[in-house]
């Protein structure tokens, strides 16, 4: 069998690079499906959760304690601030271990992790996943942003830009950007919450410690519980080097949510260099879902599609609102039309 790939430039170190990729491939092949579902698992050594040093009632309290321990944090300059350049993609997480014993395929809901109301809601989602093979609907299908904390899981490509006073954590899932304000206090002038919330942070040498709150209620993923409008996250980001070229950006997180969780939860998420994407020349593009997605929630509560020719179908490669003008097609290279009759 031949699988066509993009041309890879021949250059020194290419063979070594490729072999480094083979190891995770073999590991992936040996892992059960539940692990596969953790978005890039199998790269580098197993992820280890580092729980908070002690219990805190709130994320605010936790973050304040960490800031105190770091004596106000490291004041980096443009020259000293850690650089996480290039494209990244997900490298696994321990996310589902928070809520399920046994993984995505055949696992069972852990008791006592969620408050009663949130556990009942989650058990219905989990029943759909196990009995029907899929949770019936995902809010992203009608173009809601992934938002935080789902941002940590979305397996599109990522870019991370660190400056002394601010960090930008970017996922190209519909242009999802987290802004981290270094050395500042929380602010919220909008009188409501938002998809990414408000994030402040400080550097503890090469660790970026962050606190996020003022988040809209949502869900982690289709397979995960809901989170409430009291959800907070305290994160510690650090680039770790494991030798043989394996670099992994690891995010130790403590989640707080008195509405949803019976106690704070700890997990780890990770990212690795997106070497294949980078070699292929991938550049993240701005995209939105409103004009390019035809999935919807049908009358039976399931996800469905509108196909070309059906009422409500949106053509992402059709023309603008001004088709009478030349040059208004969104398919400028091939200029295709879809004929349904």
């Amino acid at each position, binding site marked *: 069998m031949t699988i066509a790939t*993009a041309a890879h430039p021949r250059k020194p170190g290419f*063979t070594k690079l490729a072999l480094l990729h083979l190891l995770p491939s073999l590991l992936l092949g040996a892992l059960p499906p539940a692990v596969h579902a953790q978005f890039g698992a199998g790269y580098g050594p197993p992820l280890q959760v580092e729980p908070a040093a002690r219990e805190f009632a709130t994320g605010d309290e936790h973050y304040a304690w960490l800031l105190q321990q770091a004596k106000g944090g490291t004041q980096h300059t443009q020259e000293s601030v850690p650089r996480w350049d290039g494209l990244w993609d997900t490298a696994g997480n321990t996310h589902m271990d928070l809520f399920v014993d046994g993984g995505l395929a055949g696992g069972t809901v852990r008791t006592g992790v969620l408050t009663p109301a949130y556990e009942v809601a989650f058990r219905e989602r989990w029943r759909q996943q196990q009995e029907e093979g899929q949770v019936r609907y995902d809010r992203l299908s009608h173009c809601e942003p992934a938002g935080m904390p789902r941002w940590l899981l979305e397996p599109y490509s990522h870019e991370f830009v660190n400056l002394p006073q601010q960090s930008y954590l970017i996922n190209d899932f519909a242009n999802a950007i987290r802004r981290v304000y270094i050395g500042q206090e929380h602010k919220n002038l909008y009188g409501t919450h938002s998809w990414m919330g408000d994030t402040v942070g400080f550097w503890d040498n090469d660790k970026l410690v962050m606190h996020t709150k003022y988040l809209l209620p949502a869900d982690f993923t289709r397979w995960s519980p809901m989170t409430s409008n009291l959800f907070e996250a305290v994160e510690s980001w650090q680039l770790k080097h494991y030798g043989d070229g394996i670099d992994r950006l690891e995010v130790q997180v403590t989640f707080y949510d008195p509405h949803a969780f019976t106690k704070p939860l700890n997990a780890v998420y990770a990212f690795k260099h997106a070497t294949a994407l980078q070699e292929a020349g991938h550049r993240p593009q701005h995209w939105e879902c409103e004009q390019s997605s035809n999935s919807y929630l049908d009358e039976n509560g399931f996800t469905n599609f509108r196909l*070309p020719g059906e009422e409500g179908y949106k053509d992402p490669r059709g023309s603008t609102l001004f088709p009478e003008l030349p040059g208004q097609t969104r398919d400028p290279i091939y200029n295709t039309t879809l004929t349904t009759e």
Partner: protein
Amino acid sequence: MKKNKVVIRLLCAFSLAAVAGVAVAHHSFSMFDRETQQVITGTVARWAFNNPHSWLYLNVKNEDGSGETLWSFEGAAPPQLIGRGITGNSFKPGDTLTLMYCPLADGRQGGAMGWVKVDDTTFLIPSDGGCRTDEATVTRWKEWLGKGIRSNKDAAL
């Protein structure tokens, strides 16, 4: 040169292993019959390499000879496909292709793509979680295609 060919195949193996197990999507796959795999041949009307999902549209000759019908097939998101060597120029309007898909459960003309056969030896895998496909799937299907089988249900008989 030979060494690098081997390496490229290894990279492909990595890419396939990495994508085959990951149900990456912004929507549920509940609309697909993921237990059924069928093969269809048609002419490319459009390859929409768009986020959040790619779509391949084929004009397929009707079995009764009455003309053609437009069929729609969903694939994974461009960032996943670029890592597998698939780009917005991989399928061009007018190309004749054979592909394997998991059909829409309600019987409309469409489904989730598994593999696409570009020529006698080249298969691309634009699949997402709607029609899980890996190298082993393609190998199995090559054998079935040689026997004239067009559905995994027929192969099971």
